[in-house]
């Protein structure tokens, strides 16, 4: 079924979007949420299971302290209040890959509440308020065999892998995100980007969207401009890339606007996003959704994180991305635009590490953002994937600073390092790259050049100083670029008596 869409700008002219994002993040703990099974990604099916995570009759859960630490750290980083007392709850529903047919989760008593995360879009800051951060366990994974699509429909049989069952999951739920106007898709994307940075900085998850360790559900509703009554929302499940988040929001705005424009009603439902077409299709309707029959989990004692523990965890947090960006901007003297370029290029870590290796911020940024960015683009790779380290960049700059290299030679050293010829010093030695700094040697070359280019020399002598450029060029050519061009020019002018 094809859906008519309203062009984005038109939709935004008539409707105000309201967003909500629910993000699931798998924590990178060594063991599962409620048992001691390992959590290694990609292990052979059902090799990381025990009576507890298989939900065998009689087995009982015991909470993993490292997972609770992880969620509290995320809560603190998101400026949340860590509650003094809370409980786990059971979310009851039947699903073949869910061992107990209930999920231990949190319901009306989450561990972290009322936080926020500031995100920036085109120089404008949006505050995304966080409603809650809570803890739950992941389910297993089904593999449907025999059908053409890999989906359950049409499959001959299904296999279930419980390795993932019981891996700690953190769910981060935003409050409704309003007043984003036509920037809504970008705000959603920026929020996910910032959240991913933040969690990665804390070190509690590898937040890989492609491996499913971070997954987003995107809620969108539209409100006619001028109205104060919120529209019906849809929830697009498991959007698994930053770009898809942006596209999914955009598509839902266009689709819902079309529904509303034609006098229809948006149905409250879950929807699936399709990577290939950038569109969403209807999943299960929320109206016929199950009643999860939540109640406090009787197999686990309530959690009461002590204030001392919470403060210890707060003190253990690393510098968070936003603070770090502010610091770096000040230290490096960057404009907002320059900082944004650095962040967008994924160069912040690289430049900072280069600075740490002894390079001044200016040249460090210059090399990464110009020379190396250009080469990355040429090779079609991300900047961090280039085969050169911040230490090597710092060394090349050090050689420039001590006068052993000039910029032109440095570019050849970069080329050599990137080609796998070794460290900068090895490349310099192997390629014989060194500024000619011996005055006598340079003077001799200058004399030779003057002798070989009599016509040009005469022009200079007669006062056409600009003609010296050709002589400098000849010197550089004779030295294969290794001469100090400025010094060569001085010598030429001196010898021709025009200095």
């Amino acid at each position: 079924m094809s859906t008519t869409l309203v062009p984005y700008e038109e939709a935004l002219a008539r409707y105000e979007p309201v967003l909500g994002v629910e993000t699931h993040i798998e924590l990178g703990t060594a063991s599962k949420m409620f048992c001691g099974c390992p959590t290694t990604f990609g292990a052979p099916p059902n090799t990381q299971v025990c009576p507890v995570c298989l939900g065998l009759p009689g087995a009982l859960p015991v909470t993993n302290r490292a997972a609770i630490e992880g969620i509290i750290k995320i809560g603190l980083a998101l400026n949340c209040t860590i509650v003094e007392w809370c409980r786990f709850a059971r979310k009851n529903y039947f699903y073949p890959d869910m061992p107990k047919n209930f999920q231990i989760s949190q319901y009306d008593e989450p561990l972290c509440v009322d936080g926020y995360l500031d995100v920036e879009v085109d120089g404008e800051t949006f505050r995304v308020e966080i409603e809650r951060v809570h803890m739950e366990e992941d389910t297993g994974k089904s593999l449907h065999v025999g059908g053409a699509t890999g989906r359950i429909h049409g499959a001959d049989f299904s296999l279930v892998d419980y390795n993932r069952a019981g891996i700690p999951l953190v769910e981060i739920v935003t409050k409704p995100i309003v007043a984003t106007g036509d920037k809504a898709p970008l705000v959603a994307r920026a929020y996910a980007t910032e959240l991913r940075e933040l969690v990665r900085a804390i070190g509690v998850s590898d937040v890989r969207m492609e491996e499913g360790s971070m997954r987003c559900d995107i809620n969108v509703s539209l409100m006619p401009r001028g109205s104060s009554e919120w529209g019906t929302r849809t929830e697009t499940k498991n959007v698994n890339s930053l770009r898809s988040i942006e596209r999914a929001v955009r598509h839902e705005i266009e689709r819902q606007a079309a529904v509303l424009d034609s006098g229809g009603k948006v149905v409250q439902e879950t929807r699936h996003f399709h990577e290939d077409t950038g569109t969403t299709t209807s999943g299960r309707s929320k109206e016929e959704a199950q009643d999860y029959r939540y109640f406090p989990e009787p197999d686990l004692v309530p959690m009461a994180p002590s204030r001392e523990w919470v403060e210890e965890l707060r003190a253990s947090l690393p510098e968070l991305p936003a603070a770090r960006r502010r610091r770096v901007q000040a230290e490096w003297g960057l404009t907002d635009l320059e900082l944004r370029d650095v962040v967008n290029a994924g160069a912040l870590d690289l430049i900072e590490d280069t600075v740490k290796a002894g390079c001044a911020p200016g040249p460090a940024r210059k090399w990464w953002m110009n020379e190396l960015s250009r080469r990355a683009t040429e090779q079609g790779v991300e900047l961090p994937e280039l085969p050169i380290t911040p230490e090597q960049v710092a060394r090349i700059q050090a050689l420039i600073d001590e006068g052993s290299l000039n910029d032109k030679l440095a570019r050849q050293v970069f080329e050599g390092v990137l080609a796998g010829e070794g460290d900068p010093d090895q490349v310099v030695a192997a390629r014989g790259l060194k500024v000619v700094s011996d005055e006598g040697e340079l003077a001799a070359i200058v004399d030779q050049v003057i002798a070989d280019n009599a016509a040009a020399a005469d022009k200079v002598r007669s006062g056409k100083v600009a003609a010296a450029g050709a002589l400098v060029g000849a010197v550089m050519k004779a030295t294969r670029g290794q001469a100090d061009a400025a010094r060569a020019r001085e010598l030429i002018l001196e010898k021709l008596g025009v200095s």
Partner: protein
Amino acid sequence: MSSELTRRTAAELAELIASGQVSAVEVAQAHLDRITAVDGRIKAFLHVDAETALAQARAVDERRAAGERLGPLAGVPIAHKDVFTTADMPTTAGSKILEGWRPPYDATITRRLREAGLVIIGKTNMDEFAMGSSTENSAFGPTRNPWNLDRIPGGSSGGSSAAVAAYEAPLATGTDTGGSIRQPAAVTGIVGTKPTYGGSSRYGLIAFASSLDTPGPFARTVLDAALLHEAFSGHDPMDSTSIDRPVPPVVEAARRADVAGLRIGVVRELGGEGFQPGVQARFNEAVELLESLGAKVTEVSCPHFTYALPAYYLIAPSECSSNLARFDAMRYGLRIGDDGARSAEEVMALTRAEGFGPEVKRRIMLGTYALSSGYYDAYYGKAQQVRTLIIRDFEAAFEQVDVLVSPTTPTTAFPIGDRVDDPMAMYLADLATIPSNLAGNAAISVPCGLAEEDGLPVGLQVMAPTLADDRVYRVGAAVEKALEDRWGGPLLAKAPELAEADR
């Protein structure tokens, strides 16, 4: 010798084995013989594997011969309620849905007792998933009361109580969710304890209602119950609700057996109307007996106990509706309708329809309803509030007295089939035991005589505060000692069917 061995208490058997007068193998064989002789009529066991039992006994004898230090009950046979997982025997929870299931692991309690050298003689019958008060809800047929084969042995641990009462095992484990140890102990004339919630591990116990389920011991004497209690109790890191505190000195208390100066409260709400006259009469005598032994007896009111039964019948089914969701034909147990044409949901539905009995279905339905959104506050939420009020009643009572007493059950063992079609009447059997489950405190049932009208055993219930388990043993042992002096031996000696079986 062989039939004589089965009459011995666990404490006596342990001593005989420790001193080398008999071997664990001989003791196990004697009980296996007894099971062969009488269990056809009692039907206490769902699974007996003589070879496995004898192999365990042999291992104990060998360990002892090698000079290994073994626990105080080493070599003594034990029957486990079929709700505890056992790695070497099937575990069914009395349900068709788990028929033939062999768990890959031992429950903490079965593991601990195995390590302590107790010999698992078999798995006992029970109401399906521990739901019931008569063992008539077992998918494998009812167990019979050794006092009168037409009567129920209590439930849900009726197989365990009958096995101990019929001398098929000196000790047995049970679980008490609403009275499922104390009520069967009372109606079969033996001793049964519900320890403090969290005092005995639930790991490996197939859950009925997690916040109420409490494993506990069955024995023929208070001391034996205390020995077993001590042997399996203590903190278990595999159970989050397990209490990390020392086990109360229950064995010492059972040996002490005196009540001089102890303040005993008779719960006004657990007696009188609705209680069988013969039950009430024996209870009243027991109270007088305690007074004559030097206890200070007063009447105490616990006004919210009246609401314990309805609160229980919302909380327990709510939890069970969730706990039993895992029996879905996907991973273990029964699977019906998997013909390649049906969806997973259809197979689940067919399996549950076939695999669960009517009482289990009734409670799943009740619990599903009570937890559903829109009804949660009115039912589950309200029941939890009542639970809090009952805890407060206990706290107020225990400010005045050291222990509370009541009849364990309102009636003696009723005839098999009598209440099958009347769930409400069946539920009344747990009237006096449920408050302690809701509060999580400790309680025991000890025999206090026979009701005149039917000649069947009556139980005295003693309740103590959380973690004061030693008190219930102290009072229980004092009553046991005084009554056995009066009767000239244990009450069980008066059981007519047993006399018949021995002939």
